[in-house]
């Protein structure tokens, strides 16, 4: 296995830019990031595009919230993959392994659909077969049925109304609170700058061994993302004595080691 990390960083330095085109969703975005680098779908390529993906995540505030939740959820799996690539000895639970496998499988399936869609776009509207014309009776004859009563019709109208698409009612504020990466980074930066030292558990709410709710899990993941982001920008340095031990975060001035310092 090649060492992916330095290359990723080089691309950062060269100002690798990610376009926020109209991505259909997290799978679409991920796939296009992988294809842009001419990679195959694998845990390795996923680890390599994680940073680009996260760059997008920061713009999520401008996305419709319903989708941004999906983007965030996918990012949490990416972080697992990335963490594993940085810390090869990291033990993942069976459930986490499954999530990673599933993401890969979904991406492959999605890629196949995109490939197949080439056949459709190639043909659609090209050799169109025209429909015919009705040749049945053309003279109008008033032909009611016994279904025609005002009550039946009113019921039918109520059925129509009940099916009108409703605006999506998502508890927006709640979702946003949980997932705002930018906010978390700001909170972190401020806190670390104030104390010069911090613990991961203090701002993420993460405690080893305590089962997390889904919401908490997202918070932890976003905090972890935020921490990686700060490491990457050289603002902090992190250390961990042993696996699963508390992660200590330290403010620093000059950037020396980066991701590697996690270990």
């Amino acid at each position, binding site marked *: 296995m090649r060492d992916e990390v330095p290359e990723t960083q080089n691309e950062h330095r060269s100002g690798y830019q990610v376009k926020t085109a109209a991505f259909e969703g997290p799978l679409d975005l991920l796939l296009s990031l992988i294809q842009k680098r001419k990679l195959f779908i694998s845990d390795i390529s996923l680890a390599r595009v994680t940073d680009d993906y996260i760059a997008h995540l920061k713009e999520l505030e401008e996305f419709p919230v319903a989708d941004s939740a999906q983007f965030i959820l996918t990012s949490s799996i990416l972080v697992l993959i990335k963490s594993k690539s940085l810390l090869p000895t990291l033990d993942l639970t069976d459930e986490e392994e499954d999530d990673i496998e599933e993401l890969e499988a979904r991406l492959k399936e999605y890629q196949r659909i995109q490939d197949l869609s080439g056949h459709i776009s190639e043909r659609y509207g090209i050799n169109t077969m025209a429909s*015919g014309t009705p*040749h049945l009776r053309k003279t109008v004859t008033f032909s009611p049925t016994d279904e025609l009563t005002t009550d039946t019709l009113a019921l039918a109208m109520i*059925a129509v109304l009940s099916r009108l698409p409703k605006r999506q009612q998502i508890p927006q504020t709640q979702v946003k609170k949980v997932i705002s990466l930018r906010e978390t980074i700001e909170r972190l930066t401020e806190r670390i700058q104030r104390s010069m030292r911090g613990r991961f558990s203090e701002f993420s709410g993460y405690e080893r061994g305590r089962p997390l709710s889904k919401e908490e899990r997202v918070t932890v993941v976003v905090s972890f993302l935020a921490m990686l982001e700060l490491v990457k920008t050289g603002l902090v340095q992190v250390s961990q004595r042993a696996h699963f031990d508390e992660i200590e975060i330290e403010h620093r001035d000059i950037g020396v080691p980066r991701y590697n310092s996690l270990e």
Partner: protein
Amino acid sequence: MSLSLQSQIESILFAKGEAMSLEALAEHTGADRQALQDALNDLEHTLAQEGSERGIRLVQTDTTAELATAPEASELIRSLNTKELTKRLGKAGLETLTIVLYQGPVSRRDIDYIRGVNSTSILRNLTIRGLIEQQESDDGTRALVYQPTTELLRHLGLSRREDLPQYNEIAGEVEQFYHEQNEPEDVSGPAEEESADVPSDQGAGETSRSNESTDSRTG
């Protein structure tokens, strides 16, 4: 494209659905009159070949040609006609009719949009049954809109449609639906290139989400 001339003629007559002058046929196929006449005769024979008669036939006059159902099928077509007029309207038919009643005059586009499905075929059937009728909108757009027929209103015992049950509430709810759909932030999420299908939206055109590339990395 490698269709024989007789098959080209068949395509054209099928799509047109009515009698066409030989002149127009010659023009569309680019064939001269003699070749055209030969091809028409060939087509007529192909369709009526003894032992393998087809369900459609070519009907020719000196100046026109037309496709029609085979005479042997006339019984079948008659019963099809009767069925179309007497079969139950069913849920889809009733719903479409009721939208025309409560919302008419209303365009097919609006009906489709409210129901979430394509209503072309149902509207055709309701029209043949004399329950609704198509006319030009009088709002100056000359768009085609559907109205309930006076026979239908009479049959339902309504002197005006405001007498329909819950007329005001229902009309109000549909209004609100339109209103909501036309606000910028709608239910559609990022699938905006399809927005050309919103009824009141006149421009087709692709909506491009133009979040420009942002180098979001701090530092």
